[in-house]
Each structure stands twice: as C-alpha cells, then as structure tokens.
C-alpha cells in the first residue's frame, strides 16, 4: 500500500511537460520557498509534496511548476533556507538541464537583521546584506554594518 502511494506520487511528479522541478527542499521551509519564489502569486499549474522520505534531509519537500523557468539569481534567493535544493528543468517530459542552488553575493529582503537597534527593524524598508562567509553563512547588514550569522538568520 505504501509502495503504491509512492509510485503514484512519483508518477504525478514526473508528469510535467515543460517546467521546473525543485527537489530536496527541507519540509519545514516548503512554504517559505513558495513565497520567496512568488509561486503563490502566479497562475501556472503547481503541485508539491511534503514530508517525503529523504536520506539526506530526513524529510523533504518537492515542488513542480509547469511552464516556469528560473534565472540563477532568482533561484539563489532560496539558498539560505534550502541550500541543498536541486532543480530539474523539464522540456517535453525530459530532464533538459540540472541545476544546484548557489549562495548569492547579496541578499535583498528575505532576511531580518538580528540587531534590534538596526534601522531596518524600525522603518518600513527593504533589508540588504552582503554575504561575507558561507559556512556558516554570515551576512553583513548594509545599514547597521553588523553581522547576522548562522542560527541568527531569521526570515522576514
């Protein structure tokens, strides 16, 4: 029965003519990924699965979007919350290209500055960070110049 379900899901996920499959998203960040990529605001056909078994992540999620392709700097926005995500670009039912997520040099919006005295936490404005290290990720706030590092990173 369980195997059957898996098979069904697999069938569903691979049944995409043209579009993008984003795999290996941590389940708890699925809806953040959807929101960061703006998938909640488009009319394309989207299916997703959550709480799927994954050796690496324990539990993963997967998103399938029809007729939507992402530029690298778009997809790199999810690097902070889905650093191991893998993309399959599908054309005519075939995997035409594979991509991995890279950590961008700059991050605009998305992340909250951890410094409570930072202007970005008091004014309606966009946060801006420069990525100054990648493991753990360290972000330098353009405004208060403080570093937000690793576990301090919170999404807006």
């Amino acid at each position, binding site marked *: 029965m369980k195997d059957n379900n898996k098979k069904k899901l697999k069938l569903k996920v691979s049944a995409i003519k043209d579009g993008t499959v984003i795999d290996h998203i941590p389940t708890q960040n699925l809806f953040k990924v959807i929101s960061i990529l703006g998938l909640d605001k488009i009319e394309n056909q989207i299916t997703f699965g959550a709480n799927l078994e994954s050796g690496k992540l324990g539990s993963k999620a997967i998103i399938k979007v029809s007729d939507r392709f992402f530029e690298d700097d778009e997809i790199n926005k999810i690097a902070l919350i889905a650093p191991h995500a893998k993309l399959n670009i599908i054309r005519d039912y075939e995997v035409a290209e594979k991509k991995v997520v890279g950590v961008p040099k700059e991050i605009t919006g998305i992340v909250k500055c951890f410094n409570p*005295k930072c202007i*970005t936490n008091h004014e309606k*404005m966009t946060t801006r960070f420069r990525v100054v290290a990648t493991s753990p990720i360290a972000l330098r706030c353009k405004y208060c110049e403080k570093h937000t590092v690793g576990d301090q990173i919170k999404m807006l």
Partner: protein
Amino acid sequence: MKRDLISITDYSKDEYLEIMKLAAEFEKNPNQNLLEGKVVASLFFEPSTRTRLSFETAISRLGGRIIGIADPGSSSTSKGETLHDTIKMVSNYADLIVMRHSLEGAARYAAEVSPVPVINAGDGANQHPTQTLLDMYSILKTQGSLDNINIFMVGDLKYGRTVHSLLMAMSEFENPIFNFIAPPELQMPAEYKMFLREKGIRFFEHREFTDIISEADIIYMTRVQKERFSDPIEYEQVKNVYILRNEMLAKTKPNLKILHPLPRVNEIHTDVDKNEKAYYFTQALNGVYTREAIISHIMNLK
C-alpha cells in the same frame, strides 16, 4: 553623483589627506563665505549638544544658514512620522543634511532617500566618521605625520565606536602600532584584531596602565561606563584602574598627546589638564575646522 559621509571606510586615504589639508586651511582662516545662500539641515533626532554645536559653528563660519531639530521631543518622529518621510521633506528644503540618530544604519538609509548629501553625525553605536577625521587631524597636527604612530587606546574598546573607526582609518597609513589597555569585559573585539593581523599591523594588549605608555605618541582615552557591565561588582573593581593621572606622564615622550572624544567623566584626572600633553580641548576645537573641511569637500566648494 552626490557624495555622502556615512562610514569612515567610505573614504580613501587620499580623501582623508585632502580633508586634512582643507582643515589646515580653515584653521588659518576659519571664516569663509563658501556656503553663502545655502541651507543646511541639522537633524539631531538624538540629542548631542557637543556635536551639534561643533557642526553649527562650522556651518556658521562658512556663512550657511541652519534649519533643524535640536530637541527630538519636538520633532516629527515623536508624532509617528517615518524617517523616510522626514528626510524626503527636509531634503526638499536643504542643500545638505547633517544628522544624528539613535538607530544604527539610520544615516545610510537617509542617504539613500535623500537627493542632497548626508553627513552622519553618529548613528547609535555604529559610526561617527567626523569624530574620526577630527581625531586624525589632531594626530597629524601634533605629530607632523599620520605614519609611524604608536597609539594607545584605553578604556572601553569593546563598544567604543570612536576607537574602532580610528583603528580602521589609521591602518591605511604606514607602520602604525596599536596598544590596547582595557578590562577583560571591554577588550577590542576579535574582528578588529583579525583585521590588523590580516594587514600585518602590530598590536599589543594590556590589562592596565604600566610603564609601557612611555612608548606612546598618542594616548586615546575613552569612558568606561557602568551600564556596560553585567556584574556591578566587576565595574567597581575596574573603575579606578583606567584613570590617567599627571604623575603617570613623567616618563612619557615629549611629543605625546592625550586625546579624548569628550565628555569625560573621571577617566582623565583634572590634574592632567595643565600638562601640555593634554590635548582634548584643542582636539574639540579642531572638530570645527575638520567639519568645515568635510562640508566643503562634500559640497565641492573647494
């Protein structure tokens, strides 16, 4: 493109030297009507009488007119207006904005919003670049050079933004040596020590004043504030360790000068004031010339 001054590292070594040169000119001839017909907004969202008076003196000596906020209680922010809207409005009135704010990054944000130049007169614990430039001018004036200076920084080196900015700026010059004297709780943060190591600049750390100050060209004193300590007993233990007294200066170098961003509390004993090595009041006066120089540089008046 308009130029702002938000962080000391926004400027290059050449620009530091250009401002030093202008400051020396203004010291010789402080009254120059370069800002005639211009309006400068002096926005002190957080009160700082000392810095405000220094800026407003500089603007007045340049012949400019001042509009502004001196008492944050009366300002639009207390009525809930955003910084964005205040800056949008004021930048329509003025040719230059000088601002101080308690929130970190406020000046950088204002500079983004404003079509006219913004000078940061302090944004919380973050930056106060005009203080750094006047410190540099004081060092240059008294030592004849910004190269080969042995600087002792004393007191609160952890939260003291003035010492951090001075360290960054002086690191642009040849062969500086830094000596840090601070209690364990208030030591120079690791990121600055790493910066010095990467640049191959020598620095030494000490827990208290010793004969080592006989090597100093500059002693830069800062306040050790009680509220910086989580344990009040620790404050009681260290509060008298970082006080400079006249007798301690007996064996120091003849060119030594003692700087302090002011106001002082008790960290420089008043018996030091009559020593010719005490320089903090002249340092404050240098602030007016340096701010005249910064304004002229930013507004392309010279």
